[in-house]
């Protein structure tokens, strides 16, 4: 009935989709709250992977410690990113500036600039080649279930995305920080009036989003065995596509779309050459923007 090869491709696509989802969660959180596109999210992902790799090569600690290191560095990166690329541009608040194109898109451009600088610096420091990862840490232990083969990393990615998604929901719905994040997302001005510290909430959002991104980077780096300075670009774009498809501020929608995207890419590569697989994301992106301006799951913002 089902070609086993095809099912295997689906499984692989699913894990690729979860990778994009891991990335999309943090991305969507930042966009949903601040309505800014953080082009440097891919670099946070790369930083997370490098932080993990450095701790492995220097101390060789157990895996969960490596993950903790990546989380901590990710949080730090998020904090720094917000201070450098976003904070300085909140000072333009006069009328002419608000209406001026250059200033409205300032954070888009500044995060783009920071992402270039960080990526190039990483290349200067570590070289542009892939890093070798000790065999023990590669998440490629094969696991055979019936005729299908999995790698241990796939389970970790599944698990991590579910834990991250659940944790984020808990954080947003059940904690004080989550409440202020949701308030700022809804209405920044109103949030300020009711006494929410907007500055601190924005930092918290960046820290949380970047922590998630860094964790994703590390796990994917270990699973794919590929840690290199430009590793964040492609998943960053895919995560963005997923976010746009999912209706922008809906984290759940972004996750679902990320998985759809991963599966679609994987299926495409089984029919066409590898190179065309990358095209899928962009075609999805443009098609979504044209035909579903509010995202596949609605509830989006005005973009027309």
């Amino acid at each position: 009935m089902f070609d086993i090869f095809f099912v295997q491709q689906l499984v692989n696509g699913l894990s690729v989709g979860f990778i994009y989802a891991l990335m999309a969660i943090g991305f969507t959180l930042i966009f949903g709250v601040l309505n800014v596109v953080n082009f440097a999210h891919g670099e946070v992902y790369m930083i997370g992977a490098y932080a993990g790799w450095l701790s492995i090569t220097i101390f060789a600690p157990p895996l969960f410690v490596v993950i903790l290191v990546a989380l901590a560095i990710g949080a730090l990166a998020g904090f720094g990113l917000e201070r450098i690329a976003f904070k300085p541009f909140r000072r333009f608040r006069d009328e002419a500036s608000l209406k001026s194109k250059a200033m409205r898109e300032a954070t888009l451009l500044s995060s783009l600039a920071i992402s270039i600088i960080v990526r190039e610096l990483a290349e200067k420091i570590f070289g542009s080649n892939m890093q070798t990862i000790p065999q023990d840490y590669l998440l490629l232990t094969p696991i055979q279930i019936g005729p299908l083969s999995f790698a241990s990393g796939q389970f970790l990615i599944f698990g991590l995305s579910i834990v991250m998604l659940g944790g984020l929901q808990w954080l947003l719905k059940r904690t004080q920080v989550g409440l202020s994040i949701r308030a700022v997302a809804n209405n920044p001005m109103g949030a300020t009036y009711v006494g929410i510290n907007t500055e601190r909430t924005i930092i918290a959002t960046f820290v949380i989003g970047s922590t998630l991104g860094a964790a994703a980077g590390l796990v994917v780096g270990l699973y794919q065995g590929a840690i290199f300075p430009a590793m964040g670009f492609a998943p960053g774009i895919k995560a963005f596509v997923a976010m746009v498809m999912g209706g922008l501020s809906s984290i759940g929608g972004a996750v679902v779309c990320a998985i759809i995207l991963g599966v679609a890419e994987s299926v495409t590569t089984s029919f066409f050459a590898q190179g065309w697989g990358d095209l899928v994301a962009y075609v999805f992106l443009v098609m979504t923007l044209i035909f579903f301006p509010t995202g596949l799951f609605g509830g989006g913002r005005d973009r027309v």
Partner: protein
Amino acid sequence: MRRSLSILVIFIAIFVVLPGILAVVGGGYWFRVTTTIGVFAILTMSANLVSGTTGLMTLGHAGFYGIGAYTAALLATGLHWPFYLTLPVAGAVTACFGILLALPTMRLIGIYFAVATLGLGEIIHLTLLNWVGFTRGPMGISAIPGIALDGLFAASDMGNYYAVAITAALTAFVLGRLAHSYYGNALRAVREDDQCAASMGLNVVRLKIQSFAFACFFAGVAGALWAHTTGYISPGDFRFSESILILAMIVVGGLGSLPGAIVGAVILLGLPEVLRPIGDYRMIVVGAVMFLSILFLPRGLLGETSVLSLMRRQFGLAWDNAKQLGWRQ
């Protein structure tokens, strides 16, 4: 008087002084750098029309540049068309592609348009890379005939320089006339407040499409120039990072400012060359200059409003409050 003098000074600088210096310094290398700056000046001026003046941030300009380059390269190598035909045809083909691709995305606003163009640019890049039968894929197209006319002149550094300089000057003239005229005011109105512009009788969608088509036309011409002057193109020349480079140049120079676009190209391509002795930090310099410029000069080195009035005074005919003359070209 003032107008003729300014034009004369610019002409002498571009067509006599600069090539003279390059010839004396005597280096194919510096010719190469200058022609690259020229090609990128055309790209930034064209992207500036749509991103700066009309306010539609484009992140896919390199893709359209690529369409122009491949059109010219394929026509020149396959059908042996000379450069004076491939240049305009490449522009026209690119403009058609631009209209076709951008038509459905024109209603998107702000960041969504930017992202859509990012997608389009990458689609073009990946098509160039993967459609091996037509574009020869990652191998690229080599042995593209240079800028030469049988019996008149052969391909040379100086010929390339003049081809790029003349095209860039023409581009500046046409785009200047569009952006600095009242037509440019219509484009700026679309940028500032499209709803309000529409209620003043401006056909916003048509203006957006027109400016995008002009931008694509000149991007295509720039691509054709690139193909003919380098003799070899590959998809790697038309990646997302090139689009970013173009955007950075516009931002540094000042969104909406035509001379700013040229200055941006000169700085972001010239600075890495000057800094070459220290090491290859090209992209870091680009990122840093872009970041510092947004931080400290958010309107760019040559901001739109001041440059607009300066350029109109310098090259226009009149602005006379007493006689009640507006900007005349």
